[in-house]
């Protein structure tokens, strides 16, 4: 027996550069020039989770993405980590997709692969960060799905014990394959790519599928298939006056305490008369 595992990844602009993202004042488009495209960081945890299951039970790891043609580079990187095959879903008709249309298209790509046991996703992307695609993909595929998985065990091949994060705590689950798991960064530590990995990746297959290769309803694709529409974009103005405090540490501390009080914080300084006789 062996596991058939699919990992969904998303190429994103490197989050280390998001301070440099801006809106072109004329075209009103988001400019992200010069920012390198990388595999969405938590998607590497998804790849790692898949590779670990494969090494426990055998099988195959297929990495899939819906992206522009140059995303083959990101797929190649996933193959260098150890995945077996890459699928790029790329077509102009897929463009402008929101989470519902994206998850639909990914589902159709995965269905074309044939049967699967587990689909892994990262819990959210660094750029859009809606964290919605995985849950909606689970719905399109008609399989049980969990989001924000931070611990994962597979005591049996097709039965998993999983923990998901909740506020200040965790939920524990039993989930049967076929299923979908969206992982959080705590789930594992993605492996580094070895030189051998890079060499092997060169001969691993990457296929590109366009709309014509999939059995899809056109009205569910891309912009047309997206119930949400984008309105205006803007950069929030968060500027404050940034008044610089001067002085030696003692003076600075007094100045900060004064500001805290002015900001509505009561300060209880025992035995001090500085604030007019204590509290």
């Amino acid at each position, binding site marked *: 027996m062996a596991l058939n595992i699919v990992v969904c990844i998303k190429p994103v602009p490197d*989050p280390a550069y*998001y*301070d440099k*993202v801006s809106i072109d004042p004329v075209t009103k488009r*988001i400019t992200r020039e010069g920012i390198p495209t990388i595999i969405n960081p938590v998607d590497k945890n998804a790849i790692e989770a898949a590779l670990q299951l494969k090494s426990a039970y055998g099988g195959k790891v297929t990495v899939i993405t819906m992206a522009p043609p140059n995303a083959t580079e990101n797929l190649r990187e996933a193959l260098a980590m150890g995945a077996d095959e890459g699928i790029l879903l790329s077509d102009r008709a897929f463009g402008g997709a929101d*989470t*519902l249309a994206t*998850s639909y298209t990914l589902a159709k790509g995965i269905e074309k692969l044939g049967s699967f046991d587990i689909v892994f996703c990262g819990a*959210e992307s660094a*750029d859009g*960060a*809606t*964290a*919605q695609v995985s*849950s*909606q993909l689970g*719905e399109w595929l008609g399989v*049980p*799905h*969990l*989001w*924000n998985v931070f611990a994962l065990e597979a005591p049996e091949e097709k039965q998993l014990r999983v923990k*998901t*994060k*909740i*506020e*200040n*705590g965790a*939920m524990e*689950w039993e*989930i049967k394959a076929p299923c979908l798991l969206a992982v959080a960064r705590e789930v594992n530590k993605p492996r580094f790519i070895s030189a051998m990995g890079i060499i092997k990746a060169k001969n691993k297959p990457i296929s590109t599928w366009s709309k014509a290769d999939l059995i899809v309803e056109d009205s569910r694709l891309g912009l047309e298939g997206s*119930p*949400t*529409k*984008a*309105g*205006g*974009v*803007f*950069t*929030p103005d*968060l*500027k*404050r006056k*940034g*008044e*610089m*405090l001067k002085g030696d*540490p003692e003076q*600075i501390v*007094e100045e*900060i305490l004064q*500001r*805290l009080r*002015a*900001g*509505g*914080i009561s*300060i209880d*300084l025992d035995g001090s008369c500085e604030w007019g006789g204590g509290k």
Partner: protein
Amino acid sequence: MKKKIWVFAEQVKCGLDPVVFELLTKAGELAAELGGETEVAAVLLGDGVEPFCGLLAEQGAEVVYLADDPALGMYNPMLYAPLIVELAKKEEPEIFLFGATAIGSQLGPTVAAGLSTGVAAHCVDMRINSDKLLVADVPSFGGKILGEILCPDTRPQMASVKPGIFVQGPPCPKPLNVVKMDLSLLPKSDLPLKALSLEKKEVEGVPLEKADIVFCGGYGLGNKENWDKLVKLAAIFGGAAACTRPAVDEGWSGGEHLMIGTSGKSIRPKVYVGFGISGATHHICGMKDSGLIISVNKDEKAPVFEVSDVAVAMDLNKVLDGMLARLS
């Protein structure tokens, strides 16, 4: 037919999540903007949750849709989503709001897929436009960019909002009106997904969201000792200590539940004091609504100073130790 604005009334064992009251307040405002006879309702699922109906009515829910069943004691998307989808198909709400909590972040998009409608994720503001459509401001690129999201053609127009983004308003009590949901839709057979347990840690000290003053530490803290000092300082003020992503990754802070930012919490204390924080957009997005922002960073060009009211360009050790010495 009356227009309806729904709020998912998330609760985990011990009570309703505060975000529910924040959303009910916002729903009331949106209802006023929509005009006409717009009705605010809450959708409540769980086991033994009927007593919460009164609290929801107190905060403005004119109707509470209730599914109270032992099977719903622990959240399970395979149980919750079908019930809510069927209810929404029948009642056709105009707007449906979810807290962007761990559970809401999964349930919202799951329900949306069932209804083939759109969700604006992690809204930081929302309003009704002149076409009577919901306009939601949604952050992307770690909060650097805000985009307006509309859902013009499908209903409900859904949105998720992180806890702490909106402020809970004063109560606006409505007569209790409970409508029971159809529990015959609950699957009888064995599900491939079972919730086994739910653990919630008791929060020590003042919860981050409720603190008047928050002391926040970033990568510049440099070590665990300084984090401990921050916690001490917070305790002196009856406030809370918080952190950025790097301080979580370095293992200095108590953990991710104390993290402020786009993938963490949004806070609006009276005063925020940041130590060793450079000012990455991801973090700023979570603290920008603080009353007063004071930042301590030895780099006088730190970007965080631009979004601060008060800037202290000094070695944070001196300031931390100085404050502790002065106050203890």
